[in-house]
């Protein structure tokens, strides 16, 4: 199995190839679904087999991974590296199965499979069924590349691949105006992140001449001096690499300030949001940071930066989530917030916690999204919670699963969310970062609140929709509900793999922690202050506080939105606290801010230019900062081309033309003037020459 790892990512690609090219428009929906789900399911099974095999393998015992180069990809010739002089840069196409990628592999294939299954039902009546599953398989393949790659370039391949797929899937409803735009926004925002990411890779190459984990990390761990040297931008080398990589993560995992694309990404089909924008892709950044933990351990200042960004994002998004009325938007912002949570953990050096939360979050967030999908499905595409309510009796299964999912994300013991979130908070406290702790805690409370606000507005009270909507209301088919239940189970039990010491009554059964241990390479001088203990009493207190805060949030939610009060409260909000509500519901005016800066920035730059160009003007209105500035500049440079470069050439031409005419004017046609020219020429010849001689 070790040398067959490559099959796992290839399978979905195979499915995409079949559905996208070989069998396009040749087979019915059933077959399409069979192929798509088949390959993913097979990948999942193989994944489990592989993991099992790995756990039993000597490598695992030796704290190493299954590391297998399939073939040499880019043998790009001699290069002078900082660490060991001139060496040939050779980048392989290869895969690695170690605890970390095992976890990711499991999460991706497991959740991915069930979401595929769900999609069969959800997309049943959509056109472009085959296209949809082609993209979805493509995404699975890329995601598996990302998590299984044994070097950064392969990771980057997946990294970009998932970006492309999300671009395609967000823009799935390409007939409308908005989705394609949202897709492009996502892709380009990600590009901005990747721009940082590749710089990090280059720095690594310039240092080691290689990007293979197994060649870089052990050496750093053995000799941190390699990266503590001066880098660029005044950072240490490690700092530079860490920063640039994190910029990549910001884009991928929607952190401040590059989070703007994720809410818009909800324009895609709901299962896509569940799979890509909740469970898997957006967590790639977290995975990458965890993978590069050695570097981050060396770059303490950058780590702190990561933590702060994470915390900020968490609270920021949570607050916005409070007032969203679109059910998917609520979930979207909650996702952003949860991702912030993970980065908080990673930044604090609690990589296991980060990955742990990643996993649990994958379960319950996927669950929630699918639930909302089921609701939207039932409501015939309606996403505004104000038009819902009282769905409990129409969609019992959806209701139950959604409710449990909400509990899980709210962090109510003993559900998955509780354990992972607790571990993060504990890490903050243990590190002595009480501010971050407080932020985390507050976020937890807000999370609980807005989730149950959503629950109440959606399922409780009485129905607020139109009549034919009410008439059409129906529970989703089993092909959709089964995945819901499965994920519910996951959301319930996933937490128990990482029960902290405290709650396991002394016995150390934190399986997850030990499992990931080998991946987190310890530095000789222990550059990172890991888990120094705080008193047990305090620990217990913290746990209790966390639970209480969560419960409080839930309570408030019921208090304000319970029963039939939902809409009333909502309106009360707007009337009583207009200012904050406006700020929040306008997402702190960030997009407006961007536009404003843009307008003002471009105003001076070349308002005159835009007048020519309707294309550019609408480009202006519909596109983000980068594009506006660049368009302006590009117009300017276009003019540079036209009038300066060409102008010069044409000027030369013109001058020669003038001379030509001048010379021709000498040719008067009068023979006497010619004779004069001859005489003058002779005189000039003699004169000039003699004068030259005389001096």
């Amino acid at each position, binding site marked *: 199995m070790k040398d067959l790892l490559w099959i796992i990512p290839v399978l979905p690609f195979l499915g995409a190839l079949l559905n996208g090219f070989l069998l396009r428009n040749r087979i019915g929906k059933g077959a399409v679904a069979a192929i798509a789900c088949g390959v993913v399911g097979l990948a999942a099974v193989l994944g489990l087999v592989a993991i099992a095999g790995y756990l039993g393998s000597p490598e695992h015992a030796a704290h190493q991974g299954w590391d297998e180069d399939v073939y040499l990809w880019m043998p790009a010739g001699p290069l002078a590296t900082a660490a060991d002089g001139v060496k040939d840069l050779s980048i392989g196409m290869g895969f690695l199965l170690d605890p970390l990628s095992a976890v990711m592999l499991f999460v991706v294939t497991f959740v991915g499979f069930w979401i595929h299954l769900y999609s069969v039902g959800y997309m049943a009546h959509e056109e472009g069924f085959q296209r949809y599953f082609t993209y979805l398989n493509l995404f699975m393949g890329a995601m598996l590349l990302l998590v299984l790659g044994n070097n950064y370039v392969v990771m980057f391949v997946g990294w970009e691949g998932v970006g492309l797929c999300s671009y395609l899937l967000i823009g799935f409803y390409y007939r409308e105006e908005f989705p394609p735009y949202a897709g492009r926004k996502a892709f380009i925002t990600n590009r901005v992140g990747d721009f940082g990411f590749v710089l990090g890779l280059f720095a690594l190459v310039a240092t080691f001449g290689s990007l293979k984990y197994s060649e870089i990390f052990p050496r750093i761990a053995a000799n941190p001096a390699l990266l503590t040297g001066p880098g660029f931008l005044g950072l240490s080398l490690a700092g530079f690499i860490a920063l640039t990589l994190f910029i990549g993560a910001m884009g991928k995992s929607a952190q401040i300030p590059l989070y703007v694309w994720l809410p818009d990404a909800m324009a895609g089909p709901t299962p896509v949001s569940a799979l890509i924008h909740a469970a898997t892709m957006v967590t790639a950044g977290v995975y990458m940071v965890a993978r590069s933990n050695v570097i981050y351990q060396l770059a303490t200042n950058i780590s702190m930066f990561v933590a702060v960004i994470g915390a900020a994002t968490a609270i920021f998004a949570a607050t916005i989530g409070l007032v969203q009325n679109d059910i998917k938007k609520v979930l979207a912002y909650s996702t952003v917030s949860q991702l912030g949570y993970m980065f908080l953990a990673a930044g604090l050096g609690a990589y296991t916690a980060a990955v742990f939360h990643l996993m649990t979050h994958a379960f319950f967030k996927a669950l929630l999204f699918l639930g909302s999908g089921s609701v939207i499905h039932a409501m015939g595409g309606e996403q505004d919670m104000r038009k819902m309510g009282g769905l409990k009796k129409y969609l019992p299964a959806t209701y139950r699963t959604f409710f449990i999912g909400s509990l899980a994300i709210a962090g109510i013991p003993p559900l998955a969310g509780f354990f992972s979130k607790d571990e993060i908070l504990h890490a903050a406290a243990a590190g002595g970062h009480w501010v971050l702790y407080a932020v985390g805690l507050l976020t937890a409370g807000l999370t609980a609140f807005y989730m149950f606000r959503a629950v109440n507005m959606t399922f409780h009270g009485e129905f607020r929709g139109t009549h034919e909507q009410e008439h059409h209301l129906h529970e989703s088919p089993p092909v959709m509900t089964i995945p819901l239940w499965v994920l519910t189970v996951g959301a319930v039990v996933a937490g128990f793999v990482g029960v902290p010491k405290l709650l396991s009554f002394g016995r150390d059964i934190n399986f997850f922690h030990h499992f990931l241990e080998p991946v987190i390479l310890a530095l000789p001088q222990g550059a990172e202050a890991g888990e120094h203990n705080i008193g047990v009493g305090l620990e217990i207190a913290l746990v209790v506080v966390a639970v209480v805060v969560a419960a409080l949030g839930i309570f408030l939610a019921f208090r304000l939105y319970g029963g039939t009060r939902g809409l009333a409260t909502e309106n009360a909000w707007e009337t009583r606290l207009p200012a904050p509500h406006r700020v929040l519901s306008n997402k702190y005016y960030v997009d407006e801010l961007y536009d404003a800066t843009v307008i003002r920035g471009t105003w001076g730059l070349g308002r005159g230019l835009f007048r020519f160009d309707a294309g550019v003007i609408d480009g202006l209105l519909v596109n983000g900062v980068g594009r506006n500035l660049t368009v302006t500049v590009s117009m300017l440079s276009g003019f540079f081309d036209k009038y300066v470069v060409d102008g010069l050439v044409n000027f030369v031409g013109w001058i020669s033309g003038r001379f030509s005419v001048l010379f021709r004017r000498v040719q008067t046609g*009068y023979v*006497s*003037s010619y004779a*004069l020219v001859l*005489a003058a020429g002779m*005189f000039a010849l*003699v*004169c000039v020459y*003699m004068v030259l001689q005389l001096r």
Partner: protein
Amino acid sequence: MDFLTSYGADLLFYLFALLAVVGALGVVTLRNPMYGALSLLVTFLAVAALFLLRSAEFVGIVQIFVYAGGIMVLFLFVIMLVNLHKLPQLKLFGGQSLIVAVLAILLFAFFAYFFLQAELGPEHVRPEVFVTARGEALGNSQAVAWNLYTQHLLPFEIASVFLLVAMIGAVVLGRRQ
């Protein structure tokens, strides 16, 4: 008298030089080509005299015969042929003649300056050359003839071709069809 005997030749030179120049000026200034031709004749004769002063008797005679006899008659014929009745209203000089004059004067000054600069060494050391043919002093004509037909026979032949061409040319161009 004394003066004359010692400077006679030189005086003659100045005289004829003056004549030549005056004649030339007449050529380029007189309106009526007829008078122009006559003053050209003066120049020719003066130049011939100058030749004689430089012991080129044969060339001098040829100059008189060919120019005064041949070319001049040709010119006169042509002048008769083309009726010049509307000479008076013809423009004499072109608009640029002033420039030309200035240029000519400059040119002359320039060259004259260098001519005066140039030192040419002793003159006329072996006068006998001009009369010696085949080792014996026969006279200038013989000397010229001898030199021409020995040293410069080829150019002489080519000259015949040249004259042939000239003849054809005159015929071809002058013949009316």
